[in-house]
């Protein structure tokens, strides 16, 4: 059987999917990166081999903030930015989609699509309020798990108004609301409203959000956020079945055009890889150069702004 792999190495989670040529998801894995992207990729590949070892890999695509690293680890055919990857998987699922709202671990995106082409996009630049990391942090503080957050929000009767411009102020405002005596449900619902307002103010200003709207990324798991969006915009937000792995699916879809794959084979799960870094002493820029080593020595370097280290590694 022939199949394609998509890898999305995000800030918080690493997603690996296997699809067939029609784009059907055959296998997927979703695990925490925990600051060790290479290990996360390798353990996902170990599991993939155990479960689906007899498939023939015809192409590999990587995306996410760790897309370059993933390329060096497995040998990718396409390395794509996450905006394009998310757009392609959403278009594949709902061909007439017009808006994609994507909220992940540390960044959020708004992508507008007309006639199957991305026409505009925005991405959070300065503030991570409203992303998964922040929600997780607040859930821990409130003593509930991030998965329960949404259901608590849905149970609220009158959501508290929480300041949402900045994560630090949101947190202190939530503490204040707790001390005022608001109950947990109302505070959680207020938090969801605040995050939605923050998203709309930062990313959606002046942009035409029209249906169908797809809501994807890890935060789409939270029905409280979905409900808050729908209340605020008066539009239905469609959460696809594979909402957390849409980026990886997009990367795999792009890899379908591969003629001859550069995939290094299943041994990538076992290869000995280590990373190290040093500061280049040659000029005051002091670029932090990253090296990836296998047993034979350095296989890749990047991080320098002048190109002298990066070029040696190729």
């Amino acid at each position, binding site marked *: 059987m022939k199949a394609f792999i998509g890898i999305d190495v995000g800030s918080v989670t690493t997603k690996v999917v296997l699809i067939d040529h029609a784009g059907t998801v055959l296998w997927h894995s979703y695990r925490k990166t925990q600051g060790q992207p290479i290990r996360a990729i390798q353990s996902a590949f170990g599991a993939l081999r155990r479960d689906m070892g007899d498939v023939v890999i015809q192409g590999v695509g990587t995306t996410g903030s760790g897309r370059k690293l993933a390329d060096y680890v497995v040998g990718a055919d396409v390395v794509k930015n996450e905006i394009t990857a998310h757009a392609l998987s959403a278009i594949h699922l709902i061909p007439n989609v017009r808006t994609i709202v994507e909220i992940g671990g540390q960044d959020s995106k708004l992508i507008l699509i007309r006639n199957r*082409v991305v026409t505009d996009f925005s991405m959070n630049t300065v503030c991570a309020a409203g992303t998964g990391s922040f929600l997780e942090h607040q859930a821990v503080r409130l003593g509930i798990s991030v998965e329960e957050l949404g259901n608590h929000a849905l149970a609220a009767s009158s959501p508290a108004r929480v300041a949402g411009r900045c994560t630090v102020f949101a947190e202190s405002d939530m503490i204040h609301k707790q001390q005022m005596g608001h109950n947990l449900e109302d505070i959680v619902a207020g938090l969801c409203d605040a995050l939605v307002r923050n998203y709309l103010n930062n990313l959606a200003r002046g942009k035409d959000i029209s249906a169908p709207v797809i809501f994807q990324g890890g935060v789409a798991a939270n029905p409280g956020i979905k409900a808050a969006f729908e209340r605020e915009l008066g539009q239905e937000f469609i959460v696809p079945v594979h909402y957390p792995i849409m980026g990886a699916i997009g990367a795999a879809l792009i890899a379908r055009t591969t003629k001859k794959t550069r995939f290094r084979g299943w041994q990538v799960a076992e290869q000995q890889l280590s990373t190290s870094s040093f500061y280049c002493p040659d000029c005051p820029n002091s670029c932090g150069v990253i090296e990836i080593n296998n047993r034979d020595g350095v296989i890749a370097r990047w991080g320098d702004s002048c190109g002298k280290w990066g070029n040696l590694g190729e």
Partner: protein
Amino acid sequence: MRLTVPHMGLLSTAYTRVLRQHGVDMQPPPAATLKTLNLGVKHSPEFACLPFKINLGNMIEALDNGANAILMPGGYGPCRFGYYGVIQEQILRELGYRFRMSTTDNPDRLSDMIDTIREISRIRNRFDGYRVFFLILMRMAALDRATALYHYYKPREINREDTDTVLRQAVRLIDLADSYPRLFRTMPEITRMFRAIPIDKALNPVTVGVLGEIFVVIEPFANLAIEKKLGEMRVEVRRGVWLSDWLNDRFRFRPFRRNQTTYAKKLARGYLNYPAGGESIETVGKTLLFQKKGVDGVVHIMPFTCMPELVASTIITRISKDRDYPVLSLTFDEHVSEANIITRLEAFVDLLERRRDEGIYRH
């Protein structure tokens, strides 16, 4: 007197050698690095723009290297830049540096520039002053010409970094061309060097207009080498603002090149009828021009807290909507995240490529 002038793109290459030959003891600041930026940021008001901070860093490094006089372009300016010299002087004095500071009073007036040259160099004769000043201007135009060739060849190069090497060689040759005849002989040589780069002739790259505040547009250190990044993504850059154009609009040394400010004003009519400072009118006018000429999209770059470009950015968002034309605005300061910039540039280039393909299929 050891004179230093803050960097602005390749400008220092245009004047340093020529002025040295006329007795000016030049001490150009070292090329900007992270150290320059950190020094600048440390001693600047937080909401001053990136050009202010890099300039100040340049000055501190040059003074530490032995310079004792600073020449700052300014006087009145098209934006806050006009009074930067005054504030930088005060900051440097409070830091304990001893130096002479001069600011050009009226950078638009030729006689003022000639007076400045006669003041700092051995040149006494007014005619010689003109001759030297116009040689500097021609050298600047040559540097811009080499950069434009770079924009054309970079996306097409087969071996990575070839074009960058040639550009460095070209800049070196222009630097050495210290007389009119040498400069005229150098230009065909530079064109030949670029032509010799092995290129992918079949490639029909996406084109992107680069517009915005002039300092961040022409200074790769300030914009994270955005033109090189675009070139590596196989995009042909069409830069809309050039230092030599800015100079030519004031000093008319290229009689056959039209006045770009007046031209931009004419183009911008209807969207922006009065210059709003900085390069706002150029940004608006040239966005409309690029759209008309079939350039695939515009990347608009500006320093954080730049008022004129913020005005322009709002207007070009409107143009983008009215004419269904892709525009990406990027803001730069010391906190900019390179990963974020790269992701947005890549997504923008994908968008342009897809739009182009759709257009081809439709026709």
